[in-house]
């Protein structure tokens, strides 16, 4: 029985990786995004779709598997990263797992996401779990280093064992409409990643308009992105539902035109179980249920996990739970 579950959980096997496509500027110019309408849709999703009781518990368990458990602070140390990886090995208290009766599901986060300096530490700490290590790269969070430096950074992270590379784009290229430059750079990053999957961080809080965000999403996908990601977490405005709707509609359009399914990763500011459920409902409504799998959807978050644990405990006991009773992230 458990084998069967593992089988159904592994659609990666059939997932076709984005091969990249020529830059199609006509397509880029056809993009239209109406902010007010996007807001109306995005901001009502939580009122249109809700999950309760067992459904909520199951959805929250799924949410854990979609988390890129992240630490990206200037004061990170190997000790801090090891603690994060320990949490990744056991994202849920074992008594909660047992009471839910889901030990067969092997609930683990989607990845652990760190700076290059800690890739090795994380790879070692996660050995045997199957949880991949993601490295932020290319002069995260601003992206304004020489391209040679950025390519080298990717290569070194891959060499250290990172299976996923979260690159940042140069926001100025978008603001100047220099799609060719953006395309060329992302394409070069993708090549440097080799077999490692590439997530392109747009820094949406600095792209000014929904139309810019949509066009940048498209150019990154044409250049070969496996994921498009909203934010570094360092911009003034991080992920939100409106920007998410813009980006996932571009993913949908890209899939309609190419048949290739691109992943989506909102990051920054997603801290509550309720938020996570809204994002998941939006994904399910706009892209379909099968997009709610780790190879197509991730949350860039850390404190989110603690809140989900509390909600799960509440669901089991009927009592409200305290965060200090969950092992810290």
């Amino acid at each position, binding site marked *: *029985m458990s084998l069967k*579950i593992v089988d*159904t*959980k592994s659609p990666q096997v059939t997932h076709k990786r984005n091969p990249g496509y020529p830059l199609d500027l006509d397509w880029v110019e056809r993009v*239209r*995004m*109406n*902010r*007010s*309408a*996007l*807001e*109306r*849709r995005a901001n*009502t999703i939580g*009122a*249109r*779709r*809700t*999950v*309760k*009781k*067992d*459904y909520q*518990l*199951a*959805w929250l*368990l*799924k949410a854990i598997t979609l988390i890129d458990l992240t630490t990206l602070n200037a004061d990170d140390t190997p000790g801090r990263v090891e603690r994060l990886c320990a949490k990744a090995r056991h994202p849920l208290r074992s008594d909660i797992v047992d009471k*839910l*009766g*889901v030990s*067969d*599901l092997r609930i683990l986060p989607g990845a652990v996401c760190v700076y290059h300096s800690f890739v090795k530490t994380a790879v070692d700490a996660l050995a045997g779990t199957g949880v991949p290590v993601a490295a932020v790269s290319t002069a995260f969070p601003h992206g304004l280093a020489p391209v040679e430096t950025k390519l080298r950074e990717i290569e070194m992270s891959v060499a250290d064992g990172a299976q996923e590379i979260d690159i940042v784009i140069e926001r100025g290229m978008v603001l100047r409409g220099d799609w060719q430059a953006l395309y060329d750079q992302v394409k070069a990053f993708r090549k440097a990643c080799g077999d490692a999957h590439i997530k392109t961080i747009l820094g949406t809080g600095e792209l*000014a*308009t*929904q*139309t810019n965000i949509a066009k940048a999403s498209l150019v990154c996908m044409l250049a070969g992105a496996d994921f498009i990601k909203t934010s570094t977490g360092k911009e003034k405005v991080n992920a939100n539902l409106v920007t998410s709707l813009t980006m996932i*509609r571009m993913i*949908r359009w890209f899939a309609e035109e190419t048949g290739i399914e691109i992943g989506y990763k909102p990051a920054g500011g997603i801290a509550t179980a309720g938020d996570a459920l809204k994002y*998941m409902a939006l994904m*399910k*409504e706009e892209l379909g*249920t099968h997009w*709610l799998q780790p190879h197509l959807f991730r949350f860039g978050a850390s404190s989110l996990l603690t809140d989900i644990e509390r909600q799960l405990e509440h669901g089991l006991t009927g009592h409200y739970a305290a965060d200090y009773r969950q092992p810290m992230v």
Partner: protein
Amino acid sequence: MNKIAQIFDSLDYGPAPEAPDQAIAWLDSKSRKFGHFIDGAWTAPGRSFTADNPATGAPLAEITDGTAEDVDAAVKAARAAFKSWSALSGYERGKYLYAIARMIQKHARLFAVLETMDNGKPIRESRDADIPLVARHFYHHAGWATHLAREFPDHVPYGVCGQIIPWNFPLLMLAWKIAPALAAGNTVVLKPAEFTSLTALLFAEICERVGLPKGVVNIVTGEGDTGAAIVNHPDIDKIAFTGSTEVGKIIRAATAGSGKGLSLELGGKSPYIVFEDADLDSAVEGLVEAIWFNQGQVCCAGSRLLVQESIEERFIAKVKARMAKLRVGDPLDKSVDIGALVAPVQVERIRELMKKGVAEGAVVYEPDGQLPATGCFLKPALVTHVSPANTLVAEEIFGPVLVAMSFRTPEEAVALANNTKYGLAATVWSENINLALDIAPKLKAGVVWINGTNNFDAAVGFGGYKESGFGREGGREGMAAYLKPAWEKGLKAELAAKPVAAAPRNPLDAGRLDQTAKNYIGGKQVRPDSAYNRPVLGPKGDLVGEVGEGNRKDIRNAVEAARAALGWGNAAAHARAQILYFLAENLDYRRAEFAARIRAQTGENGDAEVAASVERLFAFAGWADKYDGAVHNPPMRAVAAAMIEPLGVLGIVAPAARPLLGSVALIAPAIAMGNPVVLVPSERAPLSMTDFYQVLETSDVPNGVVNIVTGDSLTLAKTLAEHDGVDGLWFMGSAEGSAMVEKASVGNLKQTWTSRGLAYDLADPRFAGDYFLSKATQVKNVWIPYGA
């Protein structure tokens, strides 16, 4: 596998029911039997009908079927309460409205759950749309009450208002009716729809609890006969109705000649236009709200999709994919998009219409999926392969059924959009602001939504063009619908002029060159179709001239010419002003001649009348570019532009008295606002206006803007009233003639204004202001959300 593991795989939504317990407890506390709320007290339940939950078929309560006696008692209570209620300061009335708004917010969930149980609409809608808008409406009008005296000087409330509301937004329509009526100082007798009385009854309880003076609000439940008793009650001063165009026409005919104020908010078949440069996914989402909100049981539902041919295939595919995501089911489930229709009879009606449409060639798409086994449910439907000739395109379906057609050019989009007897709302999607703002004024609809849909707010007027009714709800124009000028109540009956017998005469005595006064149609002097003439007699019965005996065909031709001149409404207001000034100048130039003609026909001092006419033309020349719209601030990031638009072709039947001023005082405001006119001048003294066409000809008035047909006023008025190409009709004459005009206007529900035999003194300066301007125009609210 345990259940959680299964859901972990399927990621289904599962049930998310809203508990009905409190609503059930409230119903039980009333023993599920209701009387009326009259004079601040509850009557004992009488002969009743059952209110059902349309989602389950379960009975909810017994509702009393109001009798004529019940209505009479309610009207008496409202009449008794009117004097003291209208005498309260606006501030005092405002405080009651504010208290009602607060109470509705406090009990919002109970109202929402009760509404959903009674009506079948999804709880998300009653909770997030209906009830918040209700509270907002009372708040907004609490403010109007406070500022009434300053904002509407010299205006008074009608008195007792009879209000009849539909079942699709039961409490919201109640709020739209009661809030402005009370703010203005009226008292009301309201009948909720028979399918959905419960929230109105809960509202009555709120009125009790805020201590609203007894008799100010009376709720009488019942069916069609109860409504008819309200419409026909002689002591009701104004009727406000929201519902079907069919019933609206019955009410228009029933109130004809009664002098009752009337506002009608009726059906629609609103176009939803998507241009190729739109944000298509957002346009699809808007469409979901346009046609599947409230199961499509929305008067302004965007039920006619018009999509540019270049994107038709792609857009339709997107719509179909979106439809597959709509969840139909238990309306108390928080994750349901489409609930139950209000009653089995509606489901049947829609099925019959669909059968007819399919027989005519329509192709229907419905997504897969199961409907609940019982209850009034329908799947969302998309109808293609149709043209305007198909029943499903022409008729209001009032259900979850979208019809789709394509267009090639913006011009064709407008033509298709306006190809309907209705004119309630319209939606335009385009990211090109130039295109969107070019299309909006061309759509014959009271509300236009650009890049959005179903935006409503108490500060922004809502109401229709054409057979979608008249009068507005919300905003300044909505307040105006519950007020009238104070002086109107003091009007006396017009004294009938003594008939003059023709004196014996010999036409050869004239001594002047014979003049042939003709009709003036499309800028040409044309002989009457009848080839007969009628004599014009002076005060002593002497023959002063002859004019054409106009008939139906002359009116037909004049209306044709006027319709061809509808572009007058698009001319720059400055240009219209210039032409009116020029008319004044040229009339003034021929002052002596016109004065002499007036004297010859009436024996009265013509100089004063000519001077007054010149001044009136001058006055309305000045108004042409000043009587304009407003920009509202609804609570969202949008501007709502209230645009003042002409009614269209205006028929004007001038009074018998004052041969020149009687016509000029009416055509001046009409053409100043851009309406082409078909004028029937004074029946007794038409020569001043047949002279006037020479002034028209020398003043650059475009052909067809003013058309003049002489003859028998009543006969010509009837033809005008019955003509579907006439958009408005002003009639000055007898009470009987006025009643005839109002009754005959039901064909296209044209807006009428009649003098009802009362002595309107058109020389009074009050008629140089906005009195006729407001009657020559209608307000279109264009919603323009913005944001990059």
